[in-house]
């Protein structure tokens, strides 16, 4: 579904990605794990069109995404839950979700999306008229995911959904990610520092280190990999 080939991205003189290749099969959850500054966020931002690659190719269902503006990428059915949530804190929960459906003109479809998001995150419905800036971190993460779902994506990219969230809510959010994948059939590319959790819910994993993929395998196998264990899972 998504095919990244030899992707190279740099910020000025600093190269962030040195030829990253990965692929995501339809219907799966694929995770990209790695430490700080490994290039995880850069990979997602390049797919979304926020960054331009120096070299390499990004194919979505065979169509190249390179050079497309972010709103065109959304149009094709990819949605991106950015790192740090980036909810519109000055807008209400309702308005945030409406913005998620910005490209959707069909009122009935928008209504259906609202219902589906509220079914997944009932908390958002309770807070619908509240200004998003007043939500807790976990609720904002739900809103960020809900907002991304409002565009009715086929492919969802999530950047560190566990970041800065109470541990109890992290569990809930990861359950929801699995639910979104299973019941709505949305393919997910998950970037996470919490490798343990990410490998638990995903089918396949890539390990990114200083801009290069150093390992890739089924998630179950990666969890047993001694190298991954010592570096990312806190084991010896």
């Amino acid at each position, binding site marked *: 579904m998504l095919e990244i080939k030899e992707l190279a991205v740099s910020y000025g003189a600093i190269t962030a990605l040195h030829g990253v290749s990965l692929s995501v099969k339809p219907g799966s959850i694929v995770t990209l794990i790695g430490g700080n500054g490994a290039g995880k966020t850069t990979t997602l931002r390049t797919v979304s069109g926020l960054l331009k690659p120096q070299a390499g190719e990004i194919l979505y269902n065979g169509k190249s995404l390179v050079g497309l503006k972010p709103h065109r990428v959304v149009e094709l059915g990819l949605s991106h839950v950015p790192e740090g949530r980036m909810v519109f804190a000055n807008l209400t929960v309702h308005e945030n979700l*409406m913005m998620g459906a910005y490209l959707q003109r069909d009122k009935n479809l928008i209504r259906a999306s609202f219902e589906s998001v509220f079914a997944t995150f009932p908390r958002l419905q309770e807070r619908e008229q509240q200004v998003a800036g007043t939500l807790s971190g976990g609720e904002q993460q739900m809103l960020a995911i809900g907002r991304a779902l409002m565009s009715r994506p086929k492919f969802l990219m999530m950047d560190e959904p566990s970041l800065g969230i109470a541990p109890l809510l992290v569990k809930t959010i990861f359950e929801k990610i699995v639910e979104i994948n299973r019941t709505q059939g949305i393919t997910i590319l998950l970037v996470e520092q919490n490798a343990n959790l990410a490998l638990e819910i995903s089918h396949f994993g890539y390990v990114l280190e200083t801009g290069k993929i150093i390992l890739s395998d089924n998630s179950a196998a990666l969890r047993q990999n001694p190298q991954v264990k010592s570096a990312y899972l806190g084991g010896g």
Partner: protein
Amino acid sequence: MEFLQQLINGLSLGAIYALIALGYTMVYGVLRFINFAHSDVFMVGAFAGFYLGRVLPAASFGGGLLVLFGAMVICAVLGVVIEKLAYRPLRGRSTLTVLITAIGVSLLLQNAGQLIFGANPKSFPKLFPQHNFTFGGMVLSSDQIAVFVVTIAILLGLHYIVMKTRIGTAMRALSFNPTAASLVGINNDMVISFTFALGSALAAAGGILYAINYPSIDPLMGTLPGLKAFVAAVLGGIGNIPGAALGGVLLGLIETLVVAMGGSTYRDAVAFAVLILILLVRPSGLLGKLQAEKV
């Protein structure tokens, strides 16, 4: 009575400042820079009214509104063109670069105005029927009524657009976080164009209402009201839409009261005294929130 009369004069001047200030603040909201060419769009608005007033029936209510609407459309287009040619190529560059470009555009419009319209002041036609209403010693001219009615109508319309419509919500979203806005599918360039169209249309309305009350127009007429409206926007809190309206009205009142108290020598100085004061005491403005600059 004298006080009430001055209050009316102050409010009508303040309404005009408010209309111009809104354009500064909206553009600041989406692009984080002060569009110094805005005051010259105001001038073009007045001239558009001048030329349209020649072809449309003068001193009639419908004709006046038509002139107003026509000038607003012309300036909306001008605003979009300015953004596209001058500012869009600089997207992602430092704010200083864009700011200097804005000053360049301002000079271009002033000099093009002198070339096309001529440097001599022109007398602005009477767009609306002239009538003075007296209430126990207070005089309210039909032109002042036009200022109030048009300003209130425009403010209500603007409030509706910004708070209730899809594009208005997108403006607020973009103003808060452009990256997140683009990730939900908002075409940021389109929203920025729309913001320039809206702000420039308001400047045109301000230009015409100003010219109705001070009926001598020239290509450099925008400088002083433009600067004062900028002060009004800062006073209310730059980037804050209700703040710009409030700042405009307050500034108009302050200026008029200073004149009424015999300080007409200082009528222009007082606006800048207000600017210095607000920057010293409350730099975020009356309704603005203090924000840490993101790096």
